């Protein structure tokens, strides 16, 4: 079947089968391999993308569910001029990843968090992010990165 949706701001049309997940379509059909797949059962968050601004697990969402909706993946996060989004920069500045396999999902979940709650407390960060697993970092630097990104976004807004 033909699937049309808005992908990272661009109208996109792709052939896919009814049983294909969004992760499969993104990775195999559209070559957007930034979205990672680990647990495949919606517990690790590695595959998090935003659908109409809300975080979803692309590993279990059937692709046709996003027809006519808007999908944002890690590839669509950088600014139009190619510079990094403040969340991406904050993850680098705070050493908030090691192997990087959880990172696209972490960054997308962070985007959803900060869009909704621009100044989250530690508790709010932990609560919101609890569905994303990282096996490398012990989470501490990720929390720092989220706070740094929040501050940076606030500052940019103030300008």
């Amino acid at each position, binding site marked *: 079947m033909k699937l049309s949706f808005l992908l990272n701001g661009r109208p996109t049309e792709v052939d896919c089968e009814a049983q294909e997940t969004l992760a499969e379509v993104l990775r195999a059909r559209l070559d957007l391999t930034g979205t990672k797949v680990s*647990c495949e059962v919606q517990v690790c968050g590695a595959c998090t993308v935003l659908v109409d601004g809300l975080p979803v697990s692309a590993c279990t969402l059937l692709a046709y569910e996003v027809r006519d909706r808007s999908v944002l993946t890690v590839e669509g996060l950088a600014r139009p001029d190619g510079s990094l989004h403040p969340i991406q920069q904050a993850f680098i500045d705070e050493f908030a990843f090691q192997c990087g*396999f959880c990172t696209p999902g972490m960054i997308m979940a962070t985007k959803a968090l900060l869009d909704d709650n621009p100044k989250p407390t*530690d508790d709010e960060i932990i609560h919101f992010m609890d569905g994303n697993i990282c096996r490398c*970092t012990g989470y501490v630097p990720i929390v720092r990165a989220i706070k740094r990104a929040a501050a940076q976004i606030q500052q940019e807004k103030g300008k």
Partner: protein
Amino acid sequence: MSAEKKRDFQIVNHSVPRRDGPAKVTGKAVYVSDVKLPAMAYAKVLRSPYAHAKIVSIDSAKAAARPGVYAVLTSNDLTGLNLYYGHAVKDHPLIAVDKVRYAGEPVAAVVAQDERTAFEALEFIDVKYDELKAVLTPKEALDKGAALLHERTFEAGALRGFEGEVAAGRGSNICQESHLKWGDVEAAFARAAAVVEGEYYFPMAYAYAMEPYVAIAEVSDNGVTIYSSAQHPFMVRHDLTTVFKLPVSQIRLIVPFVGGGYGSKSYTKIEPLVAACAWKAQRPVKLQLSVEEAMLTTRSDDALTWMRTAVDAHGKIIARQARIYMNTGAYAENSPLVCEKATNRTVGPYSIPNVQIDTYSVYTNTVPASSYRGFGCAQVTMAGESQIDELATKIGKDPYEFRLANVAKPGEEFFPKMRPFDGTLKQDLEIAAKALDWQQTPPKGHGKSIGCSTSDAGAYPLTSTVIRVHADSSVSILTGSTELGQGSHTVIPQIVAEELGVPFEKVRVVASDTAITPYDRSTGASRTTTLMGRAVLEASREAIEQMVRMAAELLKIKTDAIEVVRGGVRCGEARLTWSEIISRYYGLPDGEVIGRAYIRKAGDFSKPPVFWETACTGVEISVDEETGLIRVEKLATVGDVGLAINPALAEGQDIGAATMGMGVGLFEELVYEGPQLVNGSILDYRVPRFSDMPRQVEMHLVENQDGVGPYGAKGGGEASLNSMPSNIANALYNATGVRIRRVPLTPEKVWRALKERQ
């Protein structure tokens, strides 16, 4: 090397941002899971439902006839290949031959145009089994008359990583045994002032690297090329030369970014199978395991440790004895080395005059165990550090003070014939104690503990590298070290940039392609900073020496009139940059100078271990007596790293390892019910999450430049895991007076123990 004291470093010893940062935050970083080759087919694996069974017959005709299927692989049709591999013991068939030895073992593989077609074809393979009695624990496996897993005899592999023999294949289920003895243990226990004795258990753990095992193979007239998520591409290459009977030069392993390893991706895993699939199907084949399949591929050895430790009347430890049974599962993998290491690591970090350790690594019909972060050290430190606290309590001493009085001292030869101790444990412990406000009694329901460990780390020192200084002063480093996330591709260019005095941004890393990058034995055992770091340092210096000679020739002066400065040389007023030297030497603004280094078991590296990997961790926990739930409230890590080439990366390794150790201390455990793994999915296997993170974390590095690595560096990255499980058990005792000697300390276990106390 250690004579060279801390100086004004420009690049080294700074937390420069990760080299792979931009790629990893934009989704551009390429892992093997992301690689697609032209005309690539996909494999799926049929796994045994039985833990131990004879394969009576396999009929794959129906599966092979399905549309879109290119080949079905079984042991029936692999004539021409050597089916058995293993760097320690060649006991592992790339696909089950004649019998299966654990539930989940690969029995057949289908290669098809896409994963779904391959998967759907699996159920059309008809396998008839004749079930055999399974043995699931070392105790069962060692019983008289126990079913034998391996009937054949084996030769020890040359690359097994230790000098002793291998026990496997001698007519019992013992895979390896290791014995360590000095002093007179019996006499020491006889005159001891106090003794503590007990049995401790460290569970089977799953490392859960978030990227499951994945490999792509291509077989052509040029040999075999494999893209793999392997930590040790050169060791895998060695196994493949035997499987395919090809020269080393015809096996090529390429390792792009790896999505986590923690030991679980060391040595050969699925590469022989996927290569055989590609060979049979005559096209490139990708095999991507799921997490559930990864859990059926490798786990940690669990360990049941009986241990006793004795002190004299002055509170000095005078003896330790232990008997350790490790459950290595169906195949040896790296467990013989884990067995050797566990034995050695039962002693330190204490200076003990009478020691006897006997360790047995036993085959059972369970998922094969292999390396897991810390290599046996986590297993035995759980026992050792619990017992240290128990002993301190028994003689009325503060466990922290008791440790201070007994840890190995800097320079002490606490382990006969090994490198004298190169850490400063007293200093490390003091830092941890300060971070935890040790003297302050914790609030009710809270408990504290500090623990430490040291490991004979670094694996076998065999590493080589090439650095190429280009005519514009930029540099390419060829390194066999893989980037697992530990940051080696940031640390290595930091060292080269520092030595050559060129900007960090101008140093590029070309890595982990066995056809291009020089030999590096492995990326594990926390060895990369020390060994590869030292190699690139020496290669940089060799390049500099050559450029000094070139400059002397160009300036028509003696080499000793030349002084090396940042980014070039000086002689009086004359200054030449590397770029000018190379361009003038060749007469064109192009060309290069090549620096090399070979590290082997000689010189600074002649005495094992390469270094003692040493760390302390401290925790404060809270215990909910109603539910048995433990939370780690406060965590302190102290990494004794000699010199941190990149402090942020070193701290990141420590907290990552400590978090993993916390997981095993609190809830991580693979559970078998009979022959089946019952929590073989991330839905059921609980790992630490954001909400488990301690709210207060302090990370410390101790930098005394006492290692043999570059500028006195030593490795880190594993050690902070080791003392965490025992810390949690000790802190529980501190909080409640209840002692549990089996981790993980799940709420149920704690609740029951608290109830029994009442």
